[in-house]
């Protein structure tokens, strides 16, 4: 019976490890969008978010030369809204599993550009590194 339990543990561990190395990093820019024309951006903070993702995004965008504001409201005079979806997971500690950042046209909510990164437990990155990766990938895609 002990051997059986050991087998069970080995199989479950293998499944855990296999799923723990899943990674993804994608970005796309709508053909009708031109990010170079944007000067001001407004990051729409998720009201209940406490991990500081909106601040990280705003800081990263400022390093790229944009004038950035942040609030929980979508009302803004900015050239584009920046929204995000963060997905967290627990594995010994909490970590940011997946982050999607989207640049939107303020009036229509149309997604001008979007990037997504997913790093499972074994290749986990800090929230700041995830924000860097997603935003850098969006701008790399815009340059193509």
């Amino acid at each position: 019976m002990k051997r059986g339990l050991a087998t069970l543990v080995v199989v479950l561990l293998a499944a855990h490890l296999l799923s723990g190395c899943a990674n993804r990093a994608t970005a796309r820019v709508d053909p009708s969008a031109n990010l170079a024309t944007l000067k001001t951006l407004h990051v729409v903070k998720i009201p209940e978010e406490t991990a500081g993702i909106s601040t990280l995004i705003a800081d990263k965008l400022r390093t790229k030369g944009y004038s950035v504001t942040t609030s929980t409201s979508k009302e803004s005079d900015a050239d584009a809204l920046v929204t995000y979806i963060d997905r967290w997971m627990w594995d010994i500690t909490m970590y940011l599993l997946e982050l999607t950042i989207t640049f939107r046209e303020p009036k229509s909510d149309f997604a001008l550009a979007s990037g997504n990164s997913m790093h499972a437990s074994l290749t986990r990155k800090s929230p700041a590194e995830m924000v860097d990766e997603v935003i850098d990938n969006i701008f790399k895609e815009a340059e193509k």
Partner: protein
Amino acid sequence: MRSLSRWLVLCLALLVVAGLSGCASSANRQAMTPGDLATTKKFPYSVAVRTAGGSETGAMDSSNISDQDLQAAIEEAITQNKLFQRVVQGKDGDYELSVTIVHLDKPIFGGAFTVDMEASWALVKVSDRSIVMRKSIKSSHTATFGDALAAVTRLRLAVEGAARKNIEQGLKDIAALSL
């Protein structure tokens, strides 16, 4: 006897692993194609459809929507409903429809699986590159135990349902235009 119980535990473990992670299949193009759009609008123009933002379904992944399948489902719906005179490939159409999956939110565990999808729809008139429509369309679909007992199947059904509703709404919005 010990050997038998060991094998039983092994089989149980493999079943658990399969149930949790295995055998996902990509969303089916036929299942993503909406039926009757309830519109009599028929534009006397041709349209080219291009899709982006989708991804293939990997061995350790859950059901995804591939760009090719999404494009085929949209083209099929346009043809079935005769929304445009014809669907063309490449850049020879009167209009160009770009549909990009912005977000596909899928649950990892649960009984009833709800999938949320957002896609950006852009319709461009090819002759002068004017943007006729730019919209972000959000859709959602829930698949329950009544739809499928296997989790991987239930999740695929939820993904297909969300895509089908998204395509239906997108084409209805286009039908409401005056081209």
